[in-house]
């Protein structure tokens, strides 16, 4: 799975995700990626999110929207919301999970509970960062 989230100069947020699913998946299976709120979500003033991992659990937990809800209803920061989802909720299901998210101020979070996640970001400081392992 691949994805991107961004904040532009107008203050608008956006998210995008694309995937091939998983190896040997049943024909016709649809995961979280194309489901708004599950694998992808964006709402101005709150955050934009793109998820990667076992899609069925992301769908049951409405994962991407869960991050936004934790922020907008619960007052959590982006860091708190994304860490809770990945390290508490998803790890509680014993599944590999990761996501990227950005808030209205351009802060980026990229938590994952697996050994690695291919990821990168250019923050508001303009510095490019790329990593694959922990």
């Amino acid at each position, binding site marked *: 799975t691949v994805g*991107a989230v961004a904040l532009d100069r107008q203050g*608008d947020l956006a998210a995008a995700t694309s995937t*091939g699913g998983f190896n040997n998946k049943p*024909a016709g299976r649809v995961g979280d990626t*194309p489901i708004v709120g599950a694998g992808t979500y964006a709402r101005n003033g709150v955050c934009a999110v793109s998820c990667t991992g076992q899609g069925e659990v992301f769908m049951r937990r409405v994962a991407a929207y869960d991050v936004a809800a934790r922020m907008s209803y619960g007052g959590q920061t982006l860091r708190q919301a994304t860490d809770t989802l990945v390290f508490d909720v998803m790890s509680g299901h014993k599944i590999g999970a990761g996501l990227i998210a950005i808030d209205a101020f351009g802060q980026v979070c*990229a938590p994952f509970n697996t050994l690695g996640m*291919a990821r990168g970001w250019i923050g*508001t400081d303009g510095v*490019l960062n790329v990593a694959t392992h922990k």
Partner: protein
Amino acid sequence: MSLPAIAIHGGCGTLAANLQSEADWAQTRAHLEAALRAGWKILTAGGSALDAVEAAVVVLEDSPHFNAGHGAALTEQSVHELDASIMDGATLAAGGVCTVRAIRNPIRAARAVMDQSDCVLLSGDAADAFARSKGLPTVANGYFTTERRVQALASLKARAARGTIGLASEAERHG
């Protein structure tokens, strides 16, 4: 006026060092960087976040190192069925496609669903036909296949035949 920022991912998993060579890892990182720069170029020119995330994902879909587009995982029937979606935080507009087999860049099809239809999600042959009708490039399904994915599918099917599917690693299941 906000300072722009962008983030991308190419999937999470075991990323075991022995699954690919150091040259492959270097190319993986180079493609991540290229995706970031594609989106960043749009953002710094005053373009929209929506255009930036689409551009970044297209680069990742075109890379053989990620499970999307060229390089995607295979189904049990040895074909590719691809899913994608995009969402505009400014309007909550969204578009998605699922189980598409022919659109070269599914994220562009998702964007077309958002911008040029009354729907949020289109599936299968209808989604492929819709994207084709909007002028998006199509490819034979084999375009998405890489040798790594063929081997991964063969490995998992062999495990299933031996009755050891439960012992399959995360890398074998998800890449």
